């Protein structure tokens, strides 16, 4: 198991998490298979393991009853977090909320962004038993959109689409391989659980933005993003709440090398098992967000003898927490004032740190740590709130990551 992915905060078991894991596994296997790292190659289809520590994260005694709600209700109606996330996507891309066929409007402006919205909706709507179907959709749709993200063009067919249903039908038709050799016709439409779910989600988005546009425009004459952020506040507030909760929870309960806490124990067990299962393959540890922080702590302090061929931190606060000196290895004497930089753990052979400047939870690392091979930005092309979770849902991200890896010294 040469790739170990350590998730960040806000991950809780359930169909959405499971579908996300399935999609990420397929992405890693598709885009990182066979890549060379330090003279060693990953297998063509590398094993990927996902230690789950979300169940060990923080809990809220009143189930976040402290979140204010009145203003949000008056502004946003009953829109769920996914609907409002997609609506935010629309606002960000279009500068206004379309009231008619919003996904089609988004697709005509930016096809990859519309696919991002659909993959997010599919993941959020995943149900028990449908995880694989959702994951397959996410991977295929994102892979189909990837060349258009690179070329900043749209597929020609998007211009002829008149409705969200038609857009979803056409997309599904193009990404779903027909049975057998493609010469088989179905005596019906391109229906699937994912397709119907997306259409239902699209209808909710349409309903929500229609209501939003009416309310906000009538009151202000302009759809100010600050009002929109207020509408989004419930999910943003909850996200921040869980983030800080999990951060405090980890640092308070991480234990020591001799007596690791439950989260370190869980993640270390997965890393040790991965190494033991494939000792001759390169070990790649990927940490997203808080997962990167946990990895840095574990690799540097709890497993100093473990050779990590490649550490990839994505949308992570690794350097930020070093600035606060929260790691076991942190040396408070090493600061900007002292003229030095924190030492990257010696057992990390190569380190790629990826951030999106729009992602408010992501941080650069090379101005804090002394050895960062790549400290690069990746544009998720999303907006502030969405960017943090967008990386691993985009085929383009994995493709670019592979290029970064291939550019490392062997």
């Amino acid at each position, binding site marked *: 198991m040469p790739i170990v992915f350590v998730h960040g905060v806000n991950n809780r078991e359930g169909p959405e998490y499971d579908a996300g894991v399935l999609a990420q596994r397929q992405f890693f296997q598709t885009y990182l298979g066979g890549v060379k790292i330090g003279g060693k190659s990953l297998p063509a289809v590398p094993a990927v393991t996902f230690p789950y520590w979300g169940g060990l994260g923080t809990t809220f005694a009143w189930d976040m009853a402290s979140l204010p709600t009145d203003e949000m209700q008056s502004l946003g109606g009953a829109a769920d977090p996914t609907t409002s996330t997609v609506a935010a996507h629309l606002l960000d891309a279009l500068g206004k909320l379309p009231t008619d066929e919003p996904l089609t409007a988004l697709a005509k402006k930016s096809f990859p962004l519309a696919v991002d919205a659909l993959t997010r909706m599919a993941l959020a709507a995943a149900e028990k038993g449908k995880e694989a179907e959702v994951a397959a959709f996410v991977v295929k749709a994102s892979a189909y959109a990837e060349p258009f993200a690179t070329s900043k063009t749209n597929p020609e067919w998007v211009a002829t689409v*008149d*409705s969200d*249903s*038609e857009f979803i*039908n*056409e997309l*599904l*038709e193009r990404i779903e391989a027909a*049975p*057998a050799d493609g*010469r*088989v*016709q*179905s*005596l*019906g*439409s*391109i*229906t699937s659980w994912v*397709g*119907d779910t997306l*259409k*239902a989600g699209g*209808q909710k988005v349409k309903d929500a933005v229609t209501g939003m546009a009416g309310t906000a425009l009538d009151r202000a004459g302009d759809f100010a993003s600050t009002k929109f952020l207020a509408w989004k506040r419930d999910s943003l507030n909850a996200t921040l709440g869980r983030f800080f909760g999990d951060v405090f929870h980890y640092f308070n309960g991480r234990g020591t090398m001799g007596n690791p806490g439950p989260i370190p124990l869980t993640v270390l067990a997965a890393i040790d098992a991965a190494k033991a299962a494939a000792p001759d393959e390169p070990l790649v540890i990927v940490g997203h967000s808080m997962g990167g922080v946990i990895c840095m702590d574990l690799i540097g302090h709890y497993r100093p003898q473990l050779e990590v061929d490649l550490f990839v931190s994505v949308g992570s606060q690794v350097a930020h927490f070093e600035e606060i000196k929260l790691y076991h290895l942190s040396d408070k004497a090493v600061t900007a004032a002292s003229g030095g930089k924190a030492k990257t753990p010696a057992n990390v052979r190569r380190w790629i740190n990826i951030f999106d400047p729009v992602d408010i939870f992501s941080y650069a690392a090379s101005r804090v740590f002394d050895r960062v091979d790549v400290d690069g930005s990746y544009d998720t092309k999303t907006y502030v709130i969405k960017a943090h979770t967008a990386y691993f849902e985009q085929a383009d991200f994995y493709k670019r990551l592979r290029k970064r890896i291939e550019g490392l010294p062997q």
Partner: protein
Amino acid sequence: MSLYWPDDAAAVSTEPRLHALVVAVGDYPYLSGPKATPEGKKFGLKPLTTTIHTGARIAAWLTAGLPGFARDDLNGYRNTGCPLGSVEVVYSPPDGTSVLTRPDGTPVAVGPATMADIKAAVTAWFNRCSAHPDNIALFYFAGHGISTTAQFLLASDFYAPGVLDPWENCIDFTGLRQGMRKCKAKTQLFFVDACRERPFDATVQVNPKGQSLVGGAVWSDPPPAATGTYYAAAEGLKAYGPADGPTYFATAVLDALEGAGAGREKGTRKWLVDTFSLAGALGPLTEYLKDEHQLSSLTCSPHPEGNPAPINYPVRGYVRVKVGCKDAAKNSQLALQLTRLPDDFTSAKDEPRPWRGKLAPGDWRIQMKFDSFDPLDLSETLIDPVHVVLEDPV
């Protein structure tokens, strides 16, 4: 006019006969393409060619037993107690032509499968079927289908612009089947070669209604003595067909009628396919096609009701057979000899494996020879519609 056979409606016999209506729709101009309406495009339904091949094939099978209509690949409909009476066809291929060539080489112009033509064809068909209680009524629809509050079968002009209720241009099959209680024909066969899924854009419609075309039946009308309703897909699922040939369902139906669904008629020992044996054969034959074409999503749903009623007396019954090895390398060495005197069949080792073919029911000796393995000598009793032999040598 949509009469495929005989040439003249006046020549249609009023004696017990089988009267068929075949609806084959491939052209849906208002659902995709340049004439498509924005609302029609939402369904994601595309033009079909497999249904057009199906319509032609079903019509050819029905008439293949007629003088001058014989074909090498089909024995056709044979029932001396209820011979073929008429075949009505409405047919809309994507290229817009509605001319079919009959097995005798003569062209026949049939009506397009628009709702108006379907309605006219159903009326003519219903009246013929109802003319005698010993008639067999056969309805075959191949085209797009939607199943929500009822099973809807879409005419070629579904969602045509200017029609206030776009659902007017589709058949409410559930209603049609119920309405057919009014028809006097005691044996009624319905083949629904269409999808049975519930697309989102249909489920959000307020009260979609198609046309049942035959109505006014009352519950006190006795149901037909024998009814067979044979769906090409299980409820909620899709039906499929190759673009260059008839649908898989039509292939299975005709295979069953030609003999794979036959048993011996009590008393006469004649090979007979009846409403129940046809239903029993469709499942295994669908599985066979599923395996042959590697289509995991193929299903069917046959519903015979009432008493078993004769449909077809094929020339002979047969069993669809697949013989080979599980191991591909061993398959490549396999030479076959299949024997059931007086039948003797040989298949050389360079032929496709597993071997697939039709064999007469009964006890067969199957000899399998290999270059580098010991031969196998098997005795197999072929009875069911489908028989599979997959044996590997040691």
